[in-house]
């Protein structure tokens, strides 16, 4: 990011937009004073209250995207108090602020409640309370709702607004989903990928003039929704997986799976439900990765093809052509140091001939817009690129069933659209898709049936 001239007045609420790589997060980190001098280069000046951001600790509060990475202490009260302690606030005053902040963000739990037992939305509000207790004049939020379920999004958004109204703090927020914030901010700034700002003005003004272009660059603009797939004639359907009195679970807690769970070719099934209802566990059990706690997952002969009827007993290699799984966090499934090598892992495990492997890898690189990154290290890719890569690695071995865990979490509208179209084509061509998702638009665009876990 470079060449940006921006003046934000006290009490303003600003939404920052821009495509991936435009430097939105960098700007927020710089505002919060957490960009070290040794991390990259900087030119020009950035002043908060007329001073360098690091000069006055606690004037700016930062809330980041990942709920798990910003919980610092084990008990709710202690976590909120952490910032105050660092600023040297006296003890009595700390606890007064802690109670007040928790009340303002609407987090009504005991002070000694364990922070790891909170939901994603609660964790984000906890982080906000911790920031609020420092009584900052500026609060910056880096995609604070990207990893949350729909209820969590509303909880966090409303808490931010309540805080802004009661404290008069300046708010600067980065988010892909414009609709969440457009009604409550009074200014929208669009950063350009090359540097500087493309647009700067009131939400209605910017969105009506720039809406279409923003949408094309991956921003979620309500008036310009991402393209949805055009469905074609489906291939014939046959049952691939059935379940018998299935119970799924991890660490002793078992959940009964719905009884009518049939996985059929040429169909997409969505698994939804609140946090902690066992959606991922069910998907991983159906995918032959976790053993059932009770009952059984049974593969029909059409899928098993001689490998036995219980997917959990299949060899790792036997899974490849039968059931592919895409994990929620792409980083968990990365194995190699280049994108190309990553795509070759599956085909190599199947001992495919070199020519066949190269053909498949090249095709996937093109189809998922990863060609220019073939020699890049997978860990250095952007969130959207990592997601596309993780889907591509599963597709490289052409599994009959594809299991995906929250594939659209935190994705911009462009990646979202590409994913949905790709998956729809897969289903139309005879594949079967099982997707765990909170994303109602994704479910509506793709799923033939939905399983709701309570």
């Amino acid at each position, binding site marked *: 990011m470079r060449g940006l001239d921006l003046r934000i007045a006290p009490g303003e609420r600003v939404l920052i937009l821009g495509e991936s790589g435009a430097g939105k997060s960098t700007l927020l980190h710089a505002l919060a004073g957490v960009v070290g001098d040794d991390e990259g280069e900087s030119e020009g000046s950035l002043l908060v209250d007329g001073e360098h951001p690091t000069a006055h600790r*606690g004037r700016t509060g930062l809330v980041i995207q990942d709920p798990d990475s*910003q919980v610092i202490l084990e008990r709710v009260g202690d976590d909120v108090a*952490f*910032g105050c302690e660092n600023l040297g606030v006296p003890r009595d005053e700390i*606890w007064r602020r802690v109670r007040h902040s928790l009340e303002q963000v609407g987090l009504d739990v005991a002070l000694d409640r364990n922070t790891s037992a909170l939901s994603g939305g609660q964790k984000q509000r906890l982080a906000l309370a911790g920031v609020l207790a420092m009584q900052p004049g500026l609060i910056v939020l880096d995609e604070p709702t990207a990893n949350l379920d729909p209820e969590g999004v509303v909880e966090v958004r409303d808490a931010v607004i309540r805080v802004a109204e009661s404290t008069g703090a300046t708010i600067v927020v980065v988010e892909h989903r414009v609709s969440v914030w457009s009604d409550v901010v009074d200014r929208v700034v669009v950063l350009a990928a090359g540097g500087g700002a493309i647009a700067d003005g009131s939400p209605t003004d910017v969105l009506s003039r720039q809406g279409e272009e923003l949408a094309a660059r991956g921003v979620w603009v309500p008036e310009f929704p991402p393209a949805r797939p055009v469905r074609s004639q489906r291939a014939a359907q046959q049952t691939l997986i059935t379940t018998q009195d299935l119970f799924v679970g991890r660490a002793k807690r078992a959940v009964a799976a719905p009884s009518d769970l049939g996985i059929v070719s040429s169909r997409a099934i969505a698994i939804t439900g609140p946090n902690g209802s066992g959606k991922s566990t069910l998907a991983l059990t159906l995918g032959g990765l976790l053993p059932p706690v009770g009952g059984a997952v049974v593969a029909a002969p059409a899928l098993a093809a001689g490998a036995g009827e219980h997917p959990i007993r299949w060899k790792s290699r036997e899974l*490849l052509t039968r059931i592919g*799984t895409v994990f929620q966090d792409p980083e968990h499934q990365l194995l190699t140091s280049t994108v190309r090598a990553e795509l070759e892992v599956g085909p190599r495990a199947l001992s495919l001939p070199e020519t066949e492997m190269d053909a498949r890898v090249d095709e996937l690189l093109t189809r998922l817009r990863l060609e220019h990154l073939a020699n890049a290290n997978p860990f250095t890719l952007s969130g959207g690129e990592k997601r596309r890569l993780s889907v591509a690695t599963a597709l490289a071995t052409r599994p009959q069933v594809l299991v995906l865990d929250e594939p659209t979490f935190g994705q911009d509208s462009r990646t979202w659209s590409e994913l949905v179209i790709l998956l729809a084509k897969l289903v139309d061509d005879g594949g079967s898709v099982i997707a765990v998702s909170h994303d109602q638009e994704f479910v509506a665009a793709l799923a033939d049936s939905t399983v709701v876990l309570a």
Partner: protein
Amino acid sequence: MIPIASVNPVAKLGAGLLVSVFLIATIDWVSATTALVLELVVIAFMGIEPKRFWLRTLPVWVAAPLTALTILLYGRYDGEVYFQFLLIRISDGSIELALATFLRVLAIGLPAVVLFISIDPTDFADGLAQRLRLPDRFVLGALAAVRMVGLFLDDWRSLELARRARGVADRGRIRRIAGQGFALLVLSIRRGSKLSIAMEARGFGGDTPRTWARESRWGTAEWLTLVVGVVIGVTATVVAVLTGSWNPIVG
């Protein structure tokens, strides 16, 4: 009932260390037995659920006989030799030393484990920083890291499943675990750097002197805990000296 849970963790650590100092100074069975008996009496009054007690102290019950066995087979020989094979030599001396070692591991290990069952990491960090004046950057950094262990366990499980899903889990178990360990290291460094940004954004590591939201209390109960540690250690030593079995390691 002794309300041990509310005692400052630093005092518990101190009491455990005090007992150990007295017991490490000698290698006889009388001092270890005396200390063990006194400790069991104290532990009995702590009101620990029996199941929890046995479960948590299981490692000590396993470690004690194993250590003793090693001493029995290879320890200093003295008096009559009962069995000999290559380097193995069981004698009066090694039997006595094995017994003393067995009791000593229990006498040092049991109270350590029992005292630590009730230690809350946050309270412990408060005590280390406020009472022992350890640098707060170091203490709080370590505390935040401890909280991340749970996340690492989840990461490890996901890495394992992901390797099965990617078709590489059939062969080369040792190599795979090494690779998985490296992947976990990469993930934990990334998590760690995000956490440190979050901490820095909340003013951690600044020049302002830090205040503490929770006071790490130190009063009668804490002094008493230390006294109990000293009493057990001294009693054990006195009994051993009086019975003539005190056997200092040094000298």
